[in-house]
């Protein structure tokens, strides 16, 4: 590279500068990210409760996982969350982005408002919605009663808790997803819209045949992000179900299961193995998505 500032400098002086700038970051990365990744992989082959020395047990942790009902149940609930949340969040985020993309006076206020839940912590959001979903005194069942529906016990029962958590999650993430879509929408060249208007296309036709196809790369990115994030969902499932209710006993996702095994039962090896299985699943799904994208993602350059 010609434009590099290092022309004429060589040997130990150059490496000295590189080391000076890179060392703090590289040491931190090696000690607190790379080393733990390797440790975790090693620990996943051990039987270890942190108190007695670790015992190497080959793939026994992974084998026990196969027959662990609690693990598969948590995987089942994770998939249930994903099956409801991902299409919901995908569609709500897209609708919100299409709305925010219009030039209406005051639209920036709406964009600011939709981003408030994104910056709030999951703990705060979980607690606010836990209070809103309170069966007796919550605002939601009060609203439902107003239209003549007797609201369910929400965070006490497994199925309704699942729904309540999905609603909360969509509410929290909508603004973030919309912002990702807005980036994509603003990248679509005006030329396409002008051409469509000259051809006399209706607003609906423009949306269907111009905007949405050109937005597929962003949709693809959003889909992958949502899948990766929600296989790892944790806080809302950990915090929202009412203590000691059926929902609390039943509703586990993979990450809460990992955390319980590691920090409640001190099964470090087993929990690590579980976390690697989760990583493998996320990796496989992302890989499959990358292969499938040719079928529906439209890249302008092709």
């Amino acid at each position, binding site marked *: 590279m010609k*434009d*590099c*500032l290092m022309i004429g400098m060589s040997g130990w002086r*150059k*490496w000295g500068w*590189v080391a*000076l*700038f*890179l060392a*703090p*970051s*590289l040491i*931190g*990365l090696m000690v*607190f*990210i*790379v080393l*733990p990744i390797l440790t*975790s992989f090693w620990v996943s082959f051990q039987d270890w409760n942190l108190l007695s020395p670790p015992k190497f047990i080959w793939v026994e942790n992974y084998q026990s996982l196969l027959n662990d009902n609690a693990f598969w149940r948590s995987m089942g609930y994770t998939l249930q969350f994903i099956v409801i949340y991902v299409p919901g969040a995908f569609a709500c985020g897209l609708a*919100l982005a299409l*709305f925010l993309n219009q030039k*209406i006076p005051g639209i920036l*206020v*709406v964009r600011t*408002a*939709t*981003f*408030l*839940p994104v*910056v*709030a*912590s999951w*703990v*705060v959001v979980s*607690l*606010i919605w836990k*209070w*809103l979903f309170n069966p*007796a*005194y919550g*605002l939601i069942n*009060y609203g439902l009663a107003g239209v003549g529906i007797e609201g369910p016990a929400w965070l006490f029962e497994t199925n309704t808790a699942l729904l309540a958590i999905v609603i909360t999650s969509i509410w929290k993430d909508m603004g973030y997803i919309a912002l990702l879509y807005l*980036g994509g929408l603003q990248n679509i060249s005006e030329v396409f819209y002008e051409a469509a208007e000259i051809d006399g296309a209706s607003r609906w036709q423009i949306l269907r045949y111009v905007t949405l196809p050109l937005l597929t790369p*962003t949709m693809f*990115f959003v889909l*992958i992000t949502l899948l*990766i994030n929600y*296989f*790892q969902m*944790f*806080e809302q499932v950990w915090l929202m179900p009412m*203590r000691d209710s059926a929902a609390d006993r039943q509703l586990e996702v993979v*990450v809460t299961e*990992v*955390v319980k095994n590691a*920090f409640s039962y001190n099964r*470090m090896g087993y*929990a690590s193995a579980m976390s690697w299985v*989760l990583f493998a699943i*996320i990796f496989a799904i992302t890989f499959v998505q990358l292969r499938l994208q040719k079928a529906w993602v439209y890249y302008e350059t092709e």
Partner: protein
Amino acid sequence: MKPSKLGVRLVQISIMVFLVLLMVLPFLWMLSTSLKSQQYILQTTPQLIPDPLTFESYTQLADRVNLGRTFFNSTFVALVTMVGQLVISSMAAYAFSRMEWRGRNTLFVLYLATMMIPSVVLVIPQFILVRSLGWVNSYAALIIPSLSSAFGTFLLRQFFMGLPKDFEEAAFIDGANYFTIFWRVTLPLAQPALATLAIFSFMGSWNAYLWPLFAARREEVMTLPIALATLQAGPRALTEWNMVMAGSVVSVIPILVVYLLAQRWFVQGVVSSGIKG
């Protein structure tokens, strides 16, 4: 205005009002609940404006948790992490974008690869590491593991790559060394990217839950989210929702203020982190 246009406008306005209410009402309800006394929140007809208005839930909150200490912990951890990440990431980003050395691209790919590892894979071995260093329940556990940020390095490196090098080359010809150039020329030009990283970093530590939940449980180092989650009562005792909401108000107000003041950088951060995919 034509009647049909007026109709469209009305629909737009009602959607806008609906969206703002949907997003803001839960926060207002949090605030409203925190300003009521216990007997007034347990009413089947909820009132948005508290009457009588009282701050007793906040005094109650102050009795339950060491509010000053917890608030200080959250602020201290978030600020130190933020400054550390800015310094360390910008220096690494400089080495990755402005210096040429063997293995540069390979190492950068390693940085990117670490971003793919789910945090749940990291939390167990990091805990084991921090425990063996004797850092559990200390600020060190909350701050040091996140100082070196692959995301921050990536974000700033992308920004540096897009900066013109003319000023830096001029300074170099004038005999300035790398450190002077970095400090006096590059960093001032990179202010937008630094602001974005600063906000993301602050928000990340301020809101963090999973790691501090296990790394810092003692009251002396406890951060707001952890303290807040402990306010929920046990199985039989009734949760004092006015107090829980008071805690939520205290913990969410700073981040909302930061967001409203620096909205631009938030938006830019989301958009630029979106591009990485």
